[in-house]
């Protein structure tokens, strides 16, 4: 999916900055549900296919 669209293009379609998309990709920032749904909609995929929740290791 990442190969088909630039971070800038995705950012513009979702309404966030390119740096926010980069932070989401690196797992440094957890987006709000609204942004997560928008990203999933851009890719035409269900939310759980784009985002996975990982339990923090203790």
């Amino acid at each position, binding site marked *: 999916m990442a190969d088909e669209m630039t971070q800038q293009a995705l950012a513009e379609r979702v*309404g*966030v*900055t390119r*740096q*926010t998309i980069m*932070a989401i990709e690196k797992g440094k*920032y957890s*987006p709000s549900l609204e*942004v997560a749904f928008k990203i999933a909609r851009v890719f035409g995929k269900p939310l759980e296919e784009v985002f996975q929740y990982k339990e923090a290791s203790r």
Partner: protein
Amino acid sequence: MFSFREKSLWVSLLVTVIIASIYADNIYHALIAGDAVRPQESAALILRVVVSFIIIEVVLHLALAMDNQRGAGEKEDERERGYRLVGTNAAYWVLAIGVISCIVQQVINHYTPMESSSAFIRYALAPIELKLLTIFWIAEMVRFTTELYLYRAQS
């Protein structure tokens, strides 16, 4: 690599540090010399510092916006808004504690006058507006550094 808002924060932090240093230097020398700071002098100093701060901030931000026109036109997104709120919250505590300490100290000064024997006590006896402005600079620096820390830690 850096977003427009992050660059803007670096500029604001830099300008604040420079202007606050000039301000602190002026205050420090006046207090060390043991001069009583008159209201006109403190008002003139505050005016000079605030006007210089505004002018430098506007000029540098204009230059930044001309360099990155697309970034300057972008709206703040949820991540940036979140960082701003955390930074503002941290600065609020500094400001609140500072202002309350200042008021308490003024009350103490009023009821138990102190001799200006050391630089520390001279600072304590400085006009309240000078101390409040110092607290404001510190709060601003806390706000900028907190936001910049979050930008760097989560990018």
